């Protein structure tokens, strides 16, 4: 089992180490993930129902559906 885990680890580690042009792509992915999750999610896309309990969410959406009529 440990041997298998080690083999998998070396497979990935070696793969990443030997990358040439692929490194640019990984930097690109990292940059995108930071923009998406840190900037956009953190500052601009806070879920409207976040911080509310299940009961409060039911109440909130129920009111929205009734008042938007």
């Amino acid at each position, binding site marked *: 089992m440990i041997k298998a885990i080690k083999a998998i680890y070396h497979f990935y580690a070696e793969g990443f180490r030997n990358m040439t042009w692929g490194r*640019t792509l990984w930097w690109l992915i990292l940059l*995108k993930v930071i923009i998406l999750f840190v900037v956009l999610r953190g500052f601009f896309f806070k879920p*409207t129902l976040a911080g509310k309990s299940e009961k409060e969410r039911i109440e909130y*959406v129920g009111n*929205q*559906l009734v008042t938007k009529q």
Partner: protein
Amino acid sequence: MIESALVGWSRLQFALTAGYHWIFVPLTLGLAVIMAVMESIYVKTGDEFWKRTAKFWMKIFAINFAVGIATGIILEFEFGTNFSNYSWFVGDIFGAPLAIEGIFAFFMEATFFAVMFFGWEKVGKRFHLASTWFTAIGAAISALWILVANSWMQNPVGMDFNPDTVRHEMVDFWAVVLNPVAISKFFHAVFSGWMTGSIFVIGISCWYLLKGRERKFALASIRVAAIVGIVGTLSVMLSGDSSGVQMAKYQPMKLAAAEGLEEGGKGAPFSIVPGVEIPNMLSILATHDIDGYVPGINNILDGYTTPEGEVHLSAEEKMERGKIAIEAFSEYRDSKDSNPEEAAVAREVLEENMEYFGYGYIDSREELVPPVGLVYWAFRVMVGFGSALLLLMMVVLWAERRGRLEKMRWLMWAALLSIPLVYLAGQAGWIVAEVGRQPWVIDGLLPVKAAVSSVSVAAVKTTFFLFVAIFTLFLAIEIRIMIKAIKEGPKVDVE
């Protein structure tokens, strides 16, 4: 006014994000199959040329994948922030397929994708080939779950509304997964990806031929891509036919808008462009019957009865039933703790009218008609470009087999210039599907204006322009890296 601006900007932002996401998905779906076929030829023949050919297209696949990855996540952010009413209202119906997709995609990508890129010299030929095919199959299965969720919005099935939780609850998982709209949409979207991948490979290969480079590689790539593309496009047509029948059955307003059909009837004609029609053709496409009944926009708004005796209510009747449903929902909430008997009656009224719940938010019958001009022309762009590209692939394959392609420079230019057209056809397809179903987020149950959160218009505008800037930047980066990789070339013709 403010609400209408909020609805408009929220809708536009979602359309922008979904459209951007769809730039990357079809190429992933199509290139994956093409490179898997190339690698299969390598494993079968042992010819290193095919290995190097497959590896080059894998490199292009990786660039597209890296820039496209996680762009779909933004859609989920928007659900939570801009469409919180919708997100809660749909309950686990929407969440379950998306969760399956997320988990499935992660494991498929983390394993097979890694073997495909890192494993050339480390695993056996057959195991590597299996990984490449599993990457292609995994991408298609990922698309399946997204399309199952989307199709539920077009044709909601397999659920019940629970007024206590204000959510829809799944009562039949298989009805959701095997939704006929989902099946057609899945094949239509995946095969359109094959078409995109094929046109892309043919176009780039023709560029090499025009430049007098990589001759053997380019001709071999064209051969494989044209065959995959022709099979894909014919399958797009077959699944499109099935989509048309379902649209007539479940979303007749979308079909009427796509055809600009104001007054329908038996033996309805198909409009090629305004003023040019094929008699009875729409009836054949929509019902597979030359005299089949197809309702027009006015018939749907006025209410109609099909020749089989199926009665469809008028817009006003549906709006009235919708208002009764919302009123009953409100009464149920008010009385469920204080007066159980009154609550039971209200719940019964709600259940009787739930089918029309969303119509209660509609103020005028005009709101029920999607933007006809946009849907009509998007449909023609999709079908027109799709048919032209099929013809192009057939001619390119014929010319390549006869050894004439390199003498037909105009054909190679046409193939190269077709790359943007296949993307336009794909985007037009989504415009038909998504703009055509307006004003609904969930057909008949929830219009966009009831689905949006109470957030400020300024916030949605800010994020819209932020997205425009970010998307443009990433797209420019992708195109730059891709062009660099293509210019560098596959380096496989040095024998």
